[in-house]
């Protein structure tokens, strides 16, 4: 039963709030607005929803969101840990619940005031959760306190081993900005970025500069997953979940897997790729576009290698010549990504993946049979391949 969830479910509705630096309203309201928008987009009623899933980090209780939106009886609810690593983990949950008949129609949501409320960039100095205490004790007193600092440690080694340069990282930032320029929902709408601008931006945690780091945003997104049969009767072209998978690698830590023989690749993302290709029967050549989790520029390079778009260490060459832009080999993060649209923990990317399949992205590539969408890096993570209905 290895392929039990392949091609059985589809994303049939997407919804989101505006993305901003200060939403001016509660996280619960953002969640409720996003969920309602997704249900409307699917052409469903709140009472059609019988399952919900979100991130462990989301502060919005399922039953509170359900009461707001008027969702009635629930047969399934679940949460996935590890920050952005959960981005496709929640899609995997929804697909499993629907494919097994546990629930028929599941809403996936994520909403936060990450910029105006609790900011992740300010690190772990405050409010550390108890089970993490011992883990963080190895990093706190040495000043390794922020996501940028943890990612920088991997990046420095990766650059050393493969001769990758800061200007190669800039290519990733520039490509997302080219997409954001056309997206009125993006923070960097209409604002150009050059490799030179990137190289002149200040260091945050060397080798990472300001423009290697994603946005901090307020906002909410949601999407609806149901069976492929039911999807046929709904108003939008469905985005079929061809495959979805989670993975944690051997010797994994939360953001600090520094003790593996090599720290310049991602065993957990390699395992996400392997499972997705096996489940879907597809390979890298079949993927037309990507939503590659981009909290920081270098992690896009690591993932391109995990998914076999190029060989180990060669992502620095792959990202050149506009390969990540529309018309290139693998148009990526066509909404502007988290670097240039908004940081909604990868879930704004899920909605963009659905738009790519529908053919409604503001930066729509001509070919859109298969779209890869991935979760966060440095943590136990996840990924899925979306495709067209047969």
């Amino acid at each position, binding site marked *: 039963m290895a392929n039990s969830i392949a091609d059985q479910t589809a994303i049939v509705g997407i919804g989101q709030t505006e993305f901003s*630096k*200060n*939403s*001016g*309203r509660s996280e619960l309201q953002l969640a409720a607005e996003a969920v309602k928008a997704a249900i409307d987009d699917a052409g469903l009623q709140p009472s059609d929803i019988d399952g919900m899933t979100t991130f462990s980090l989301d502060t919005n209780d399922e039953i509170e969101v359900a009461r707001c939106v008027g969702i009635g009886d629930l047969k399934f609810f679940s949460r996935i840990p590890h920050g952005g690593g959960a981005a496709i983990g929640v899609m995997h949950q929804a697909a499993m619940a629907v494919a097994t008949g546990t629930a028929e129609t599941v809403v996936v949501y994520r909403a936060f*005031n990450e910029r*105006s*409320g609790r*900011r992740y*960039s*300010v*690190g772990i*100095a405050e409010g*550390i959760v108890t089970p993490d*205490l*011992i*883990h*963080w*004790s*190895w*990093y*706190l*007193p*040495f*000043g*390794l*306190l*922020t996501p940028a*600092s943890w990612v*920088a*440690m*991997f990046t*420095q*080694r990766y650059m*050393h081993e493969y001769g990758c340069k800061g200007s190669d990282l800039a290519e990733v930032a520039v490509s997302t900005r080219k997409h954001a320029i056309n997206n009125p929902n993006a923070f960097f709408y209409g604002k150009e970025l050059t490799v030179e601008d990137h190289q002149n931006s*200040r*260091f*945050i*945690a*060397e*080798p*990472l500069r300001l423009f290697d780091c994603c946005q901090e945003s307020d906002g909410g997104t949601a999407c609806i997953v149901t069976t492929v049969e039911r999807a046929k009767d709904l108003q939008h072209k469905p985005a079929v979940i061809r495959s979805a998978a989670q993975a944690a690698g051997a*010797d994994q830590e939360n953001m*600090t897997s*520094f*003790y593996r023989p090599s*720290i310049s690749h991602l065993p957990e993302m390699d395992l996400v790729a392997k499972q997705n290709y096996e489940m879907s029967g597809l390979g890298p050549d079949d993927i037309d576009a990507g939503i590659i989790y981009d909290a920081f520029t270098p992690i896009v390079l690591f993932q391109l290698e995990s998914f076999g778009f190029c060989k180990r260490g060669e992502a620095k060459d792959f990202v050149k010549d506009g390969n990540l832009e529309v018309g290139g080999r693998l148009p990526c993060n066509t909404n502007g990504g988290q670097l240039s649209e908004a940081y909604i923990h990868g879930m704004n990317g899920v909605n963009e993946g659905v738009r790519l399949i529908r053919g409604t992205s503001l930066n729509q590539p001509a070919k859109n049979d298969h779209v890869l969408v991935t979760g966060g890096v440095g943590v136990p993570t996840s990924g899925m391949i979306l495709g067209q209905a047969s």
Partner: protein
Amino acid sequence: MTLDPRKKQELEAKIQSYVGVESVVGTASDLVNEPMIRHWCEAMGDDNPAYLDPNRAKDSVHRGIVAPPPMLEAWVMPGIRPEWTLSVEELEAQGRTIHKQAELMNVLTEYGYSGVVGTDIEHGFERYLKPGDQVSATLRIEDVSEEKATALGIGYFVTVKRSFRDQNGDEVGWNRFRILKFWPAEQPAAASNDAAPSANPTRLQPPRGHDNVWWWDAVDAGKLLIQKCDSCNTLRHPPRPMCGECQSLDWSGVEASGKGTVYSFTVLHHPKFPGFDYPFAAALIELEEGTRIVSNVLGCDPADVYIGMPVQVSVEQVDEATKLPIFRPVK
């Protein structure tokens, strides 16, 4: 501590409306004069004869005493009762109005951003001032940043450019001053009765629990230990209660030689946490025994740290409260 989102939106709308606003600062109460130049030079410890000695100054390129350029702003300073200490009524009684920068500072204070610190200043000077000149100043609020998290607390950077003109209306100089107006970071509870915050903030303390307290106790005693499985002899770091190789629960701590090399590193710039001198290097050190450990590389410029750099541990008291195994380059 922070404002609720609605209050914050209100504040940000108010303070952003000041960007681009220009305002008169005022005209100097006194003409440029030798006694005030002499007082300023005495206070600053500047004995340049061009400012002080009429006989020598008359042979200089200026053909007489000139005022030190950095004194420019002093000519228009409001005296010991600056305007922001006066009520609007008091100001009006003196024929003065509050200028826009002071007004903006007051708005921020009202919303709780009561702390203030100058962060940097740039100057430009068009000509030397001579006795008899009369200086007047205007200002333009060039920028109000988005909210930033700083070591002092959350706050807004305000950039103000002042232009100084002489009695003929010609520009004699300018300065651009950046100020952080911040919500003072809360002091730890223990210090809350103390009026003065600690002058030497310490690093965040490593939380100690059953699985790591023995290791930190050894650091307190000046030693760097590595956990070793008593059953299969595998070394492991960070410590865990069970051996991942053979699932034995028996282990001991063995002392490391302290020799290692830098496996990877990052030089940290932002955000700035109390207790650290930025920029500094945090590094992943590969010990000669084979395990890796995160620490800091001190004793060299952070820019000189490189992958493969040989380093040696030394257990050091890095601040009043913190003792850590730190690595230094092998000479």
